[in-house]
């Protein structure tokens, strides 16, 4: 096992470098899963926004609107002056600013004039449209009552009661309604991290064996070509398993209940399958590089492009249909789909479609491995 030993020695030599990558990307994976989880909770539950309200209206309607908004949101005092307001928005202390003018109740009741209220959303905030919708619905209801000849104070009272009504939404299966567990978010970012670590780590070691003089020396050694390659492959498997085991150990420490469930096990297998794919992508990449910085470039291109287009960073639903179609040619797309499907599964018998998705990722692994072999052969001929 000489070659295998050398493989381990080279890996050991690069250990400080690998450690930096592993720690940084582990931190990135955890931070990402935490932050996305926070934003997802905001997105689907009743959104509570920080709304600054300046109510100059003396009538009932202004008060009614404010007390209605108070039901779901945090009402804050409006900072004095435009600059203070902008500062509060800049530091995300408030999400939305609503100014209710002095004679709002009268003007509204008279039905004259549009755009009576002044609402300002923090530039770039995607949640602001929700509160605008709430205000619109509330005022529509009040207007209906007023038009029907009901006085303003009664209209405000009735509207508030109407707005409390919520649609009955059921889930087809009981576990559909479960919020996604934090383990899901951790596994969501695994493709990015694995791609970077595999390409940089495995790539760095494999590159050593591809050094022109060294490979020439190895070719004329007594050990057969097949034996050498088997040992290198063994080394690659060990490395892949080590990285996988490290991340799973972390996942186990952080999300113990998730990891002990069926979902946890299926997610772990999903990650293992993807780590094999990442290793074969690393093998493919290494065919094109001569130095470590070049490997760095390729690792970033592959990891970022596969993650962005595969739906790791950006939800697939946000992408146009054309891009979604193109994403099907990327292994991380299938990983992400499998990760989502896993959350719906209750027993191994139900996981049929997930096994198929594993298979798709494995086919990608095979394709990259074969492509790497092809490039390797072609390069050998040109030497």
């Amino acid at each position, binding site marked *: 096992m000489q070659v295998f030993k050398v493989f381990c020695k080279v890996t050991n030599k690069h250990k400080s470098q690998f450690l930096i990558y592993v720690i940084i990307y582990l931190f990135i994976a955890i931070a990402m899963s935490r932050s996305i989880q926070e934003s997802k909770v905001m997105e689907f539950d009743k959104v509570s926004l920080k709304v600054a309200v300046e109510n100059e209206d003396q009538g009932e309607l202004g008060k009614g609107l404010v007390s209605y908004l108070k039901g779901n949101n945090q009402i804050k005092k409006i900072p004095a002056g435009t600059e203070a307001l902008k500062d509060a928005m800049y*530091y995300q202390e408030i999400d939305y600013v609503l100014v209710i003018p002095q004679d709002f109740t009268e003007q509204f009741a008279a039905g004259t004039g549009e755009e009576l209220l002044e609402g*300002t959303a923090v530039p*770039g*905030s995607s949640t602001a449209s929700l509160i605008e919708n709430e205000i619109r619905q509330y005022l529509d209801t009040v*207007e*209906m*009552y007023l038009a029907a000849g009901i006085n303003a104070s009664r209209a405000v009272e009735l509207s508030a009661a109407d707005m409390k009504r919520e649609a009955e939404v059921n889930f087809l299966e009981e576990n559909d309604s479960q919020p996604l567990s934090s383990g899901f978010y951790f596994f969501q970012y695994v493709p990015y991290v694995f791609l970077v670590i595999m390409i940089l780590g495995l790539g760095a070691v494999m590159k050593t064996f591809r050094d022109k003089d060294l490979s020439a020396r190895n070719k004329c050694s007594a050990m057969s070509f097949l034996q050498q390659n088997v040992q290198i492959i063994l080394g690659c498997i060990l490395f892949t398993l080590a990285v996988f085991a490290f991340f799973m150990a972390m996942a186990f420490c952080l999300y113990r209940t998730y990891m002990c469930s069926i979902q946890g096990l299926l997610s772990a297998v999903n990650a293992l399958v993807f780590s094999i794919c990442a290793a074969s992508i690393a093998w493919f990449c290494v065919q094109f590089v001569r130095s470590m910085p070049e490997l760095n470039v390729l690792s970033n291109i592959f990891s970022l492009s596969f*993650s962005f287009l595969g739906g790791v960073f950006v939800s697939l639903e946000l992408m*146009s249909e054309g891009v979604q179609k193109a994403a099907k040619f990327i292994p991380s797309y299938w990983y992400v789909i499998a990760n989502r499907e896993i959350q719906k599964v209750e027993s191994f018998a139900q996981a049929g479609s997930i096994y198929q998705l594993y298979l798709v990722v494995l086919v990608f692994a095979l394709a990259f491995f074969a492509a790497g072999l092809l490039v390797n052969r072609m390069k050998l001929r040109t030497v």
Partner: protein
Amino acid sequence: MFFRLYFYSIRQTVRQKLIMFWSLIFPVILGTLFRAAFGGFMEEEVIFHQIPAAYVAEEGASQTFAETLKSLEEDSELVEVLETDSGKAEELLKEEKVEGIYYNRASDIEEGEKVTLTVTKQGMSQSILSSILEQYQRVFHTMGQIGRENPSGLKAAAEVLGRQRQYLKEGTISETPKSAMTDYFYALIAMNCLMGVSMGLQIAVGFKANLSDLAARRVVSGTSRYGMMMPDLAAKITIQFLCTVFAVCYLMFALKIPLGNKFGFILLTTLVGSLVGIFLGFFIGAVGTYKESVKEGICVSCMLFSSFLSGLMMGNMYRFLENNAPIVNRINPASLIVKALYSLDIYEGYEKYTQCMVSLLVIVAVLGAGAFALVRRERYASI
């Protein structure tokens, strides 16, 4: 001598394909990827596609909701309704061919309450389907209430329904309409600026005698180190700045990303950002006696990590940090660059912008002073 060395250094840097790739091509690739991933979102064309929903009505159920759905399908093209039986609808929902099922029961309870929605997950489409039902039920309840309070006003109230009154006037806090996706492009510009780390590292390598032969020769020469270093620094800053300008122009004019209209200030930000990138690389290169490959790894990791914290991979990272660890946003160079660009967009004055720029310049000064102190008078007993 300064200009001679300056031009030599420029020629030498331009010939380093890898460095040019990082600074010039990589941002272009990533920008194009972003545009592909968020393309639909930026143009608001695909997000609001018709949402497929199934409609199952029991025999004898009222037709009012079906009519409402029909009008939503034909007039506002919000939903695509498929009327079917319960078994088929569930099948369609499981296959994700529809996003939800509206069940209309024939019972004695109040009309609005008879309809329920069944879904399998919580998402944007499901929220829209649920809000359609909610709005329908609220209107129904309101009409019922008016019928009880003042039946003669029903007609007038129904007329209000048909009217679309615009209650809200958009605030005047910012003139530029900003999409949440623009922040990703700001983060990309920040990353591009920080890509100067590779060039900065090259400067350090050129003066660390244990890292390169050129440095060993320079260290023993009679010329002052600063005399040789300054032209090198100036050349690298020039090239990095030009690369960033190229990327900004590509984003603004080729991909048509709205980055604001203060082009001059954007360029100034990228200049200071490039300075931070170069000095960060220079500093990392000057610290310790590690191998170049380790330093290269640290540089790339720092650059990516800083960009990650500014929201390159996750749009809401800034907010997450502002709520949990605001100090990170005040010292992380990429976040400061993003915030400087953001403040240019929303503020008329330049107070916040200046704050960010001063923070960035302080970082440059600290890194520069540290790097110079480390390289200054460095002596080697043996290499």
